[in-house]
Structures are given as structure tokens and as C-alpha cells.
């Protein structure tokens, strides 16, 4: 069973935007959609390493700011003709707080 840790308030993340968290496994982008769903993805486009947290959020998709690769935030899979995927992390909202998988805290997983 996944253990979650609190990383901040939902309102700290702008709608259709993202905030970054630093983790032992690199930066992770935490996105918030227009309808207040949250997603957590590695903040690194598999194409050229662009910071996905700076991409435009539309629906449950995000467009990488460097070369417009589009990812489905549910699966982390690149859309259209581009091939590749970004790792996704378990994340949820409880009473206005954003909780993320505790495996991002543990040092033993550090790559």
C-alpha cells in the first residue's frame, strides 16, 4: 500500500499550472487541472529534458515548453507521433492538501 506525504496546499498550485517538488529522485512536477485533478510526473521530457512543469496544461494533457511534445498526464505517455513516456507518481488531494507517494522521500530509491 502506498504511503503518502503532504507537500502543500492545493491552492499553492495554479489551475492549469504546476509546481515543482525536489525529491531524491530528481524534480517532480505536480499539475492541477481546470477541474482540480492533480497529477505528478517526472519534470523531465524524455525528448530533450525540458521542464514539463513549465508546459501548458490543457485538459489532462501537458505540452512540453521546449518542443511541444504532448503527454497524457494519466499515463505519462507521449501523444501523437512522438514516442516516449514520463514516469508518473501516485498523488491525491485530501481536505485541500496535496499528498504524494512517500517513495519519493526515501533515500534508498535514489538513482
Amino acid at each position, binding site marked *: 500500500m502506498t504511503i503518502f506525504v503532504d507537500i502543500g496546499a492545493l491552492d499553492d498550485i495554479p489551475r492549469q499550472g504546476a509546481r515543482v517538488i525536489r525529491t531524491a529522485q530528481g524534480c517532480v512536477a505536480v499539475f492541477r487541472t481546470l477541474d482540480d485533478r492533480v497529477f505528478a510526473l517526472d519534470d523531465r521530457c524524455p525528448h530533450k529534458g525540458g521542464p514539463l512543469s513549465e508546459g501548458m496544461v*490543457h485538459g489532462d494533457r501537458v505540452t512540453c515548453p521546449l518542443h511541444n511534445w504532448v503527454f497524457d498526464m494519466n499515463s505519462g505517455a507521449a501523444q501523437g507521433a512522438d514516442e516516449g513516456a514520463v514516469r508518473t507518481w501516485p498523488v491525491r488531494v485530501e481536505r485541500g492538501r496535496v499528498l504524494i507517494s512517500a517513495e519519493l*522521500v526515501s*533515500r534508498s530509491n535514489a538513482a
Partner: protein
Amino acid sequence: MKKLVVIGAGMASGRLLEQLFEAAPGEWHVTLFNAEPRGNYNRLMLSPVLSGEKTYEQIVTHDADWYAAHGVDCRFGEPVVRIDRANRAVYSNTGGAPYDALVIATGSAPFIIPVPGSDLPGVVTYRDLEDTNAMIEAGVAGKDAVVVGGGLLGLEAAAGMAARGASVTVVHLMGHLMERQLDPAAGYLLQRDLERRGIKVHCKGATKAILGHDRAEAVLLEDGTVHAADLVCMAVGIRPEVRLANDAHLEVERGIVVDDALRTSDPHIFALGECVEHRSQVFGLVAPLYDQAKVLARTLLGEEAAFRPVQTATKLKVTGCDLYSAGDFAEGEGREDIVFRDPGRGIYKRLVLENDRIVGVVMYGDTADGNWFYGLMKDETDIGEMRDTLIFGPAFQGGTTLDPMAAVAALPPEAEICGCNGVCKGTIVDAVLGGAHTLDAVRACTKASGSCGTCTGLVEQVMKLTLGDGFVAPVPAGICKCTDHSHEDVRRLIRSMGLKSIPAVMQELGWKTVGGCHSCRPALNYYLLAEYPLDYRDDRQSRFVNERNHANIQKDGTYSVVPRMWGGVTTPGELRAIADAAEKYAVPMVKVTGGQRIDLLGVRKEDLPHIWADLNAAGLVSGHAYSKGLRTVKTCVGSEFCRFGTQDSTGLGIRLEKLLWGSWTPHKVKLGVSGCPRNCAEATCKDVGVICVDSGYQISVAGAAGMEVKETEPLASTPSEDEAVEIITAFIQLYREHARYLDRPYKWVAKVGLDWVKAQVADLPTRRALVERFEVSQSVYRRDPWAEHSTTTETPKWAPLADLTLEAAE
């Protein structure tokens, strides 16, 4: 079976064989000789092959299976060398064949001007697949190409090579392009469009020689001009290929002489296509050749038939150049003109009338009504009744709405839709009612739109009329995949429907996606803030990263910071503050930009509000080096210091920058102000450039110095600095209100026409209203975003939300 020998596998003989096999299969055994090592393909489609839009395989009209199915003995790559009329046989380079009837369809040969150097390697013609492949294989990208001849063929060759990346110059002997099809006004519009597409045009240019040692290097004209040329394409004209007929002592004038049944002076020999001369007329367009094929098929089947050439219409197959020409448009006694001009949109229509009948049609820019006019001309309809509104087309006759579908609905069944194949509206309607429900199916059974393809849209409209909602035509390109509405539509609807938010636009205009995408959202955000500066709140999340973060993202995710230096002028204090900031935040690179300011590259995102606060403290504000908005006003020192300066160019530049900064525009905007015509500020390749002269200020606009390089064009001159500022402000506002998002001013001006822009800013009330609307918008946007984002509440938002590495370490 009777023996038919055909010399030449071109479009005319191909159509003849189709007609023959369809009407009477098994009547003739056909032997087909062709000098080219292949069968028939659609020669009208060579220009898309040249430009890379199509391949040879896609333009083949008769493949090996077709010939085999009809028992045609194909002798491809075997040029016929002799006709033995006495024994009724032909001989090729390798064999021969006897005939009961012979058809000569040898077509035409390109004409090469016999100037010195015309035999050098690198001089090509443009007539068949070999020529096309030679041009493709020469690898024209990045090379200089000269096309000699500004007729249909020459312009298609020029456009094809330009599409493959060549730098193309068209040299044309006459005063305007396509003088056989266009009058000077339409020729001028065509030239303007081609020049916008980067093709240079030199009219009244007589070729004197082709220069070069081992191969073509340049073209020398009679007037002394030299155009560099790695490749020279001769497209001055064609002449009927009559050598075989000459050798066989058939009657030959300019072409092989044929009667109405297409019989030559030998009753067993027939001819058709571009090699024939019929009643002193030779033929170059495909429509009359197809008529000849029909007639000759009937002649060969022993039926009575007579060829009667009809007027044909011309369209140019160059993307973006929409022209239509038919009939006779020379001026003459008893002839009258009806002319419609909309220079702003580059539209020109001219009807030539004689005795209340249309005798000529020339259209440029909007050719939708061409076929309707053509029908009136062909039927010699008396247009006296509708003369007042004739030029507005069929939709206007009877007061129906100006709907393109209504125009097509108004066409009578016998109106010609496809000029190449002579297919009328009724035939298409019958085909659709008979079960052809797709464009391909209609094409297959009627041939409509199967040759040059320019009537495809019309054919689709006829299909839609016939099928109603059952037909889904390909729609014009929308902004992106989220909508079928074009940029222009969306802008118009935002205004007319009073839509004031992105969700409202997406809801009311039926967006197909949730939340749009990275293409439409920034465009919508711009259109809304430009339309409703006071009501609409800029949506940061609909902006690209650079505009959202007020800094330019670099490939490693760091940012560059460029403080504004008004007119490129700075102070020791500002420089000290920049130096301090660079050291404090360990900026890896400090660079001077092309816009006369200083770029701090490699700043981390969380440092941005801090470095901004430090710079703000020294009086420095954002330089908007990241925005679709005003970037810089580059200046020279002007009359303040320079011994040549005529006006205070630095002062004017600073004044303009302080007026315009912070404004959002469809794309970035850069200005330059030079104090004298020596132009040290390089003002004439900017979006707006000012050259100061003794008598005042010369304002020019629509320059470019990026992927494209383009000199500015004069907008206005004025003795007064105040008026210069007003004109420039009005121009910027006009651009903000009308240009499509991501069109730089030069692209926008090219679309609407400089004349229209001039007229808007020259008219004082219009100009003042533009300036006023600009000021309303600036009351919101003329402010420093760095200051707004470096407050104590905002600054924390630039740092990570959490740092789990610290918790891990605990």
C-alpha cells in the same frame, strides 16, 4: 482486327484510347510507340512533382495493367524514326509495325532561345518527367535558378524550384507576366504575390546570353543585368513536334494540318494533340486536346464528328496565386469594362463586354465566380438586365445571400465545372445520384477535377448540394485540431458575439477538446485582451513559458534576463547594478544583444524574482525580450552628437519606447530610428523604421530580418515628430486589431496590402481613434511585470513547492 498504330503516349492519345476501348472494345488492335520509356502520365501535375508535393507514381494515369487489359502492344522507349506511307508501316529504332490507321500524337517540343551559351550544361527545359527529374536531381536547394519565360509553364517551374529551396528569378520578355492570359493589372498582382513568396521577377528582360565556362553560371540580359544562375530553365514556349510528319511529306504548317475529323493530308493518317494545326490554330491547353480525342475516336469508328475549338479558361497551379482568365480582354472599339478592385485584399476582377455580352474575364485573388462568368460568355447570354450587379457574381442576381453554396446552386446543369475535362454540373449531379458519394468516386466516373485539380472545391460543392448533409467536405483549416474555425472567424465571432473569456469562446464556438491546446490558447488569450483590454484579465496559464515567466527559457531550463535600456541608452549606475546582479546570482554569461541591451543568461527560476527586485531597485524594468509585444527601439546617436545627424533620433526612439512598452501584439515588434539616411540603426529591416532627414521623418514598415529578410516599405513622411509618433502608434494598434496571432507585421501587411494600411493611418479620424484605443489598452498594460512578480507574496511561488530531499536527510 484492324490495326491502329499510335505514335506518342501523351494525354491526348491516352484519352483517345480510353474513348476507343469504351465505345467499341475489340474493334482495333493498338500498337503504341513512345519515345519516353514509360506510358501516359498527367503532365499537368509535373509542377507538384517538381515542388515535392507528389511523386511520379501518383500522377500515372495508365499503368501497365491498363495497357495489358486492353491488349495494347506497348513499345515504350522506342522512338519512331520513319513512316512508310506507301506500305502503311512505321519503323522505330528497333522494329516496326504495319497499320490500317495511324495516329500521330507527338506533342510539342520546348523552344530554346538560340543565344550563346544555351547549350551549356545546367540549361534545361520543363516539359516532361526527364526535365523535372533533372531539376530535382540538380539539387536546387540553396542554389540560384533563373527561369526564362513568365508564362504558365515558366511560373509553375519557378514556384516548384522555389518550393525546393532555390533562389529563383523569372526573366520575362514582356511588360507583365502571363500577358496572353492576364491584363497588366492582374499581371501586377500576380508579380506582387510571387515576389512575396520570394520569387524575383524581371519583366521586359530580353535574354542576351547564358554565361559560364563549363556550365551555366549566369544569365546576361540585353539591358546589361546579370542574374546568377546555377540552373537555367527555358520556358519561353513550345512548338509542335512535326519532324516525322515533315519527313513523310504530310502537309505541315506550324503544326501538322488536320481537317475537322482530325485527318491529315493522307486519309489513313490522323493527328491530334499539341502537334496539330486546325484551321490555322495550334493548341497548348488540355481541354481542346480532350475534345480532339473524342472526335478522333468517333472518326476511327466510322462516325461523323467534327472538332470545334471552344474558348478555354486558364488557371495557374501555384499555391497562393489565385487567378482565372478566359476569352479576349484586349481593349477595342465598342468594348466596355466592368472592373472591381479591392487592393487591400489583393482582389481584382474585370469583365470585358461587347454588345451586352461578356467576351473576356480576368480575375485575381477571388476566382470563385469564374465558371459562372465563363458560362455566360460561352452561351453569349445577354447581361443587360443584371449589368449593375454582374461583377458581384451569381449570388447577387435575385438578392439571395452571398453564400458560396448559393453561387453553385445558381449554376444551370450545363455550366462547366471542370474546364480540363469539359465536365458540366449536370454530369456530376447525375454521377452523385448514381451512387458516387466520394470525391474519388466522382473523379473516377466523370473525370471532373482529375487533371489540374483546381476545380476540386467546386466539385465538392456540387456534391454537397446534391447529397445535402450526407456529404462531408474537407473543411478549411481551423486554428488547430481543437476547432474548425479559422483565426479570422474566431476573432470576428469574439467581437460579434461579445465573448469575453476563453471558456466562453470554447463553449460558444464548439471547441472539440477540453481546455484547448498549446496552439489555440495563447491565440485566444491575445484576441481577448486585444478586444477587451479593460474587461478581460490576461490568463497567465494560457501563455507560453517565456511570457508566463517574463524571461526566456534556455535549453537547460534556466532563464535569461534582459532589462530594458530605453533607446539603447544606459548609465554607469545601471551598468553597475547589472554587474552586481550578474555576480550576486553567478550568471554564467553576460552578453550584449542585437537590440542594444544586455542579456544575463543562465539564471535559475527561483532566483528570478530576486534578481528582478535588485534590478528594479536601480530603476531597471523588464525589457520584454521574451514577449509577443514591443521588444526594442534601436537608435543611433542622431543630432545630439553625430556630425551627420539631422534630428534627435535617440530622443525619438526613447519617446517611442516609453509609449509602446508593455503592449501585447500578435507577434514581436521591433523598431529602429536612424538620425540620417546612413541608417546606423538599421531601421529599414525592422517592423517599423524611422529615417530622419532634414525635412522631418520618413516612416516605413513591414521589414524583416529573420528567416526572411525584407526591406521596409514607406508608410508616411511627416515634418513633425509628434505626428510621426501618432502615425506609428496608429500602425501598431491597427496591427494589434487585425493581424492573425503569430504573424509578424510584414506578413500581415502582405495579406491586407500596404495601400489599405496607408489609407487607415492617413485618414485623421481613423488614426486618432486607433491611437485612442491603444491608450486605453496601455492604461492596463504599460507597467513592469517584474515588479508585480517580485513582491513578498509572489516571490515564494517561484521556488519549489516542497523539498523532499531535505526531509530525506533528516
